């Protein structure tokens, strides 16, 4: 299965996302922000980092990249799309997902090993998790506070579109401890913490994050 990993100027975790895709058994295809050609990929990951230096707002400039036009097109047609951290910010700026990510409530960049609980395993990226499963993956960002209006929150909760919630103290002020959400169809997922940094206990707090990447391979097989 071909999984595209996008690099914007300032993207940092693209190589880690590619490593995770390969570890899961997929083929990682590098996609350049300025090139609208998606190279026949079956799914796309928007990785973490500081694209465009987080200028203006995180992800605000990246969302207009030529590659995003093609990605939005295919995602609206059902292609699995995962936005991690900065990638999640791009998805919200592009209005593929509702809400927005704002400054951490304590104003500091925070890097910590975070427990999150999976609450939806119907999305293309969480099929290999159990509902209620708690996983330990790194959280590392300065703008990770998920905000949305009450109507959107009610919709997300009511439609079971929260895919993961922070366990324990709220690390960044996100509404309802939301760590990740999905669209109604379940193919587009935004997640603040970094599963690609938890694929090997040698270099991360666990290997709990790998299942995000094996899930999408399963989704491809199923579709």
């Amino acid at each position, binding site marked *: 299965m071909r999984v595209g990993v996008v690099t914007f100027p300032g993207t940092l975790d693209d190589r880690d996302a590619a490593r995770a895709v390969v570890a899961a058994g997929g083929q990682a295809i590098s996609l350049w922000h300025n090139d609208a050609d998606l190279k026949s990929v079956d799914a796309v990951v928007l990785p973490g980092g500081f694209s465009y230096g987080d200028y203006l707002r995180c992800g*605000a400039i990246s969302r*207009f990249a030529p590659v995003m036009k093609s990605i939005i097109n295919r995602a609206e047609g059902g292609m699995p799309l995962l936005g991690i951290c900065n990638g999640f910010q791009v998805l919200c700026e592009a*209005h593929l997902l509702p*809400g*927005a990510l704002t*400054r*951490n*409530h304590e104003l500091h960049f925070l890097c910590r090993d975070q427990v999150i609980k999976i609450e939806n395993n119907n999305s293309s990226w969480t099929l290999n998790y159990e509902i209620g499963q708690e996983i330990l993956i790194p959280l590392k960002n300065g703008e990770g506070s998920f*905000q949305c*209006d009450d109507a959107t929150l009610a919709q997300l909760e009511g439609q079971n579109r929260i895919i993961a919630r922070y366990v324990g103290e709220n690390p960044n002020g996100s509404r309802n401890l939301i760590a990740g959400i999905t669209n109604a169809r379940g193919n587009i997922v935004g997640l603040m913490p970094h599963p690609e940094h938890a694929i090997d206990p040698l270099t991360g707090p666990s290997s709990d994050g790998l299942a995000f990447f094996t899930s999408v391979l399963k989704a491809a097989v199923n579709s």
Partner: protein
Amino acid sequence: MAKIVVEVMLKPEILDPQGKAVASALPRLGFTFATSVRQGKRFEIEVAGDPTPAQLAEVEKAAGTLLANPVIENYTVKVEK
């Protein structure tokens, strides 16, 4: 030379931790006048000559799609001499 000014503020219901931090810092410096502080952004856009209504309309569009994120921010557009 006149310029077009766009000011962007977080919507009132959105938590503004930076504004809060400023509000907490003021009394520590002896300034006790503020009951609240919110922090926003100001864009100064220069055009050749005086801004035309057509240009202002375009700035409005730019403000709503790029300069501000309407999900969490409000904006105003005006001309300043």
